[in-house]
């Protein structure tokens, strides 16, 4: 049995779903950031799989760009987590609800 495009797309869709569920259900900000990374990497897998299918390297270039931007995003995210810790905020996304109404 050969491993083809549908296989890669399914794996990336599953990863995407795992990431999304992680963001929505897990409560630690760090796990939330991790789940976002899982989602981003699922997109990368899709991009690379399609790049292979279509031919050419556009998709792979896009995946590299996504990785770079994901790194920038995590830097800001971790910086915020550190700042929140310094302000002695509870690191639990369920407790982040002073803004609601």
């Amino acid at each position, binding site marked *: 049995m050969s491993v083809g495009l549908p296989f890669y797309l399914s794996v990336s869709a599953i990863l995407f779903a795992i990431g*999304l569920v992680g963001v929505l259900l897990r409560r630690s900000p760090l796990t939330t950031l991790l789940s976002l990374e899982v989602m981003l990497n699922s*997109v990368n897998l*899709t991009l690379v799989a399609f790049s292979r299918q279509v031919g050419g390297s556009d998709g792979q270039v896009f995946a590299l760009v996504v990785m770079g*931007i994901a790194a920038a995003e995590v830097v*800001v995210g971790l910086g915020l987590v550190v700042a*929140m810790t310094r*302000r002695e*905020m509870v690191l639990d996304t369920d407790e982040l609800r002073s803004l609601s109404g």
Partner: protein
Amino acid sequence: MIEAPNVVVLAIAPEISLLVGASLVLMVAAFLRGRDRGIGVLLGIAAFAVSGGFAIAAWGDPPVVTVAEALQVDQLTQAVRILVAGCGLLTLLVALGWPRMREAGAEYAAILLFAATGMTLIAGSNSFLTLFVALELFSISLYVLCAFDRSSKASLESGFKYLVLGTIGSIILVYGAAFLYGATGSFQFDGVAAGLAEAEPGAWLVALGVVLVLAGLLFKIGALPFHMWVPDVYEGAPTSVTGFMAAATKIAAFVALARVLAEPLAPVRDTWEPVLVVVAVATIVVGNVAALVQDNVKRMLAYSSIAAAGFGLIAIIVGGEAGSRALLFYLAAYAPMAIGAFAVITLHERDHRGVTTLESIRAWGFERPFAGLALVVFLLGFAGFPLTAGFLGKFLVAGSAVESGWAWLAVVGAIGSVIGIAYYLRVILALYDRSARSGVHAAGAPGLASVSIAIALCLALVIAGGALPGIGIDWAGEAARVLAAGR
């Protein structure tokens, strides 16, 4: 030898000035450690002025596609450059009234310049790659700006929430772009359009790609069902940042959406039109109804900006020359009202040393007559009262909808505006409540003069836009021709 991509430097001069400005501001700040860093803000203002100046000078130039076909510099791009530069300039003036600007003003100015660069780039993007990079450039900058007040837990919370939800939005957008790439073999807008025109109707790859790209962009606009972040982020962020987001982010995201729908996704109008109609109606209804029950003024304005996004979506659905012109005028008219309204709230927060609610703003209009009057004008502009730019914006949108057979959408928008009058009046009545004594006294403090200047400028723009509509409409019409021509 590797062939270098063609770059027309003059065509991207506004972006270059923003980036050079940001770098200069940071360098100057590094040397001024511990001293007054207001100079960084002044440099930032200069960078915005230069950038806007380049765009105004290039107004009317023939369109150029440059930087290896990544960017199209046309009238629409120029219009967004001018608007964003204006928004950035006003925002910095407002931010000067914030006590922490003395220590952190330079960083604030630099990040704001980076955000503005992303916003001008997204308006001119010619491929999904540029679109994504520009989107992230301004989104990540805005996450930092939202959390800029590190002494405030609300600000940190809003920054983190925006980061998590905004990133999901961006990821959804790239996921959609990936599917469109799979279906058409290109990220370039013209390549995608050509591929979609040939694709068999109802192909699942295409449908999935279109819906995900739309969802990602609607997320940034703050339309339903992706509006949850707007009230939290608007409430928690420093007020000057909230004003910038309400004005400039809306302009950038709306123009990007309009361009994506007019260029790459034009062949699949049947797929996205019904989705957008449902979203627009739901956004107008939910935004206006939720705004009715808010006591926190910033939160109320956040819901009103959701409702405004729904109104803008009507213009996007109408499309064509009239719809695009209405959209641009509406966005341009909305910007000074939003920045001005949040500037007045900045002033009130200074006086009151706390959150601006319907209770704390009671009778404050007597304490600060000019700011109070300005807030009244901005709120009436939001509500769409005649003689303000807001009225003309709404009028153009509704008019274009009626002309092109979307009269019922115009009626929905009008009903929403009527509901809007109710909650804007609540604020105005509280502001001039004779039965109450204002517990808030006008505090004289450094930096307040620049806030007043910003409010006066916004006021002048809102009234000029309403009283002398000709210039603004011509200007929006020229920029809108790009969208009407399509591909």
